[in-house]
């Protein structure tokens, strides 16, 4: 209880020292904004650019042309899976429910590996994260006229439950979000529903529809940030898959494996290196700022710490009080930094929907900012815990 009180009081008292607090909050804000910006860049880099940098996508020209049981497609998937350079092969399937509804499978483990929608496509609600969840298009109307549910038209929205009734069993999914209409470009003008993999499989059992393959995505092995391996792997896989593709006679049911990726890869390597350099600069600046803060704090609070030791504060009490001050300042700086970057993204995108910082970015950048605090905590603790109260009291007799 005592230590907690020391921590909380120290955090509160920190903000009374206005000049020092404002100066360091401002510095931590700048640093946090920098870190958040680049964390966002890198997270996006991993996600949005994942397909561009590591993925080779083949998808359909027209719907209802390649069903799941097609031997050549299955062989193509098997070959793609067999290459040493392949990290994974992700297959997105769909089926038609009645005449006007098309249900797509979402791989919630690889939400960014789907060309139709990604978590960024969410207009309201949230993305699918578990079993029994579904997404619909904004403002879509489900015309159930020709389904087993009978004649009905519904306007689904997040929170609603949708029951898909088969001959002997049914599957219930809960709508958790709506997808922005931008993705909607279906010449057949069907209402699209996206469901998680488990629900999709359950629907196949309950409804026994003919299932089609919409898209096959092959991801190359390797870490995008750490090496050129994924680019080399991708180069190799493109050639192999192209050979397989034509060898199996898949064209024209599927789009061919894309050409002309070399320039994109080289550009991305340059961009990546530049981003890494900027990020490293931010890390270095953070460590330097933290050291500076630790050194200044050791000077500012020397007398105060000597007095506290005189009145009976032990080393842990002193450390906690320093930790409280440093964490408070950096946390407030971080919050302002989040607000600043969010505002910047909104301004850039002119849309609130597509520019919300993700939880991952918040978590990653906050962890980095907390790590930045370490040098200041260590240096101030090291020098202030050693302070002898006599240093203050020696000025008399």
């Amino acid at each position, binding site marked *: *209880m*005592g*230590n907690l*009180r*020391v921590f909380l*009081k120290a955090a509160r*008292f920190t903000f*009374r*020292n206005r000049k020092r607090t404002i100066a360091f909050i401002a510095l931590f804000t700048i640093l946090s904004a920098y870190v958040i910006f680049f964390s966002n860049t890198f997270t996006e880099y991993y996600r949005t650019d994942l397909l561009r940098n590591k993925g080779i996508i083949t998808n359909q020209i027209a719907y209802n042309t390649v069903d799941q049981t097609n031997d050549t497609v299955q062989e193509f998937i098997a070959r793609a899976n067999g290459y040493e350079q392949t990290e994974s092969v992700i297959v997105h399937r769909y089926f038609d429910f009645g005449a006007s509804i098309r249900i797509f499978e979402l791989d919630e483990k690889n939400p960014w590996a789907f060309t139709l929608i990604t978590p960024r496509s969410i207009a309201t609600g949230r993305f699918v994260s578990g079993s029994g969840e579904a997404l619909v298009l904004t403002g879509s109307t489900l015309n159930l006229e020709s389904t087993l549910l009978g004649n009905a038209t519904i306007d689904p929205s997040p929170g609603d439950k949708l029951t898909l009734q088969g001959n002997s069993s049914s599957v219930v999914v809960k709508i958790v979000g709506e997808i922005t209409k931008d993705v909607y470009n279906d010449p057949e003008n069907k209402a699209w529903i996206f469901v998680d993999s488990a629900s999709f499989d359950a629907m196949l059992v309950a409804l026994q529809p003919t299932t089609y393959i919409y898209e096959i995505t092959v991801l190359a092995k390797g870490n995008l940030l750490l090496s050129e391996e994924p680019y080399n792997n991708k180069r190799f896989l493109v050639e192999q898959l192209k050979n397989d593709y034509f060898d199996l006679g898949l064209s024209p049911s599927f789009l061919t494996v894309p050409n002309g990726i070399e320039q994109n890869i080289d550009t991305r390597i340059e961009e990546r290196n530049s981003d890494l350099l900027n990020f490293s600069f931010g890390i270095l600046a953070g460590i330097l700022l933290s050291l500076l803060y630790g050194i200044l704090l050791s000077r500012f609070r020397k*007398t*105060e710490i000597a*007095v*506290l*030791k*005189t*009145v*009976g*504060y*032990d080393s842990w*009490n002193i450390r906690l009080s320093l930790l409280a001050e440093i964490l408070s300042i950096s946390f407030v700086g971080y919050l302002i930094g989040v607000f600043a970057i969010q505002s910047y993204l909104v301004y850039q995108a002119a849309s609130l929907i597509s520019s919300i910082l993700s939880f991952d970015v918040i978590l990653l950048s906050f962890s980095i900012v907390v790590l930045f605090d370490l040098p200041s905590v260590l240096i101030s603790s090291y020098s202030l815990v050693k302070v*002898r*109260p*006599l240093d*203050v*009291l*020696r*000025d*008399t*007799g």
Partner: protein
Amino acid sequence: MVEPLIEAKNITKIYKRGSETVYALRNVNLQVMPNELVMIMGPFGSGKSTMLHLLGGLDTPTEGEIVFQGEDITKWDEKRTTEYRRLHVGYIFQSWELINNLTAIENIEVPLYPTKLPTDEIRARAMRLLRQVDLYERERHFPTQLSGGEQQRVGIARALITEPNLLLADEPTGNLDSETGDIIMRMLKKLTRGGTGTVVATHDESLRRYADRVVRFLDGEIIV
């Protein structure tokens, strides 16, 4: 027979200043009884502050022992000495040494924050002490908004909040005018009750009237 609250036996304190050896204290013996205000008087550099530091567990003697409740505090480790300072000693500084970004009441409460006492109890004690030092209406003032005398009274209240056995005051009136100094000394005299022993180090001869006993230091030795 009443036992001394604290007893310094044959204390010698030597400082090294380069190659020079300086005797801050030489074979000093001092007893402080409960309810007694002992005044250590002497000129600058006579060793009176060093004596206070040793009694308060802020420094250790080169030779000799300091016995408190039957134990030699010079043998204690850092943890026990810190505990001794927290539980048994109240320290009043010449230049008050209040924390500038804390209000008067918070400055008084500070020594109790690391303890297990409930926050309400701490606040109640601090308010009681504020009344005792006649600063009830200055509760939310910061040190820079208080006069020197008022700051010293906050310093006294801070020293008393742990209900210490031993109150150590180093030149408590050194930075005050004589009228305010008298107020502070009357306060210290009044507070030296209930088993508390007070040791005041000063060079100001006019304060000796407040002492129950005067001990004179010169060049690290007791001369009277």
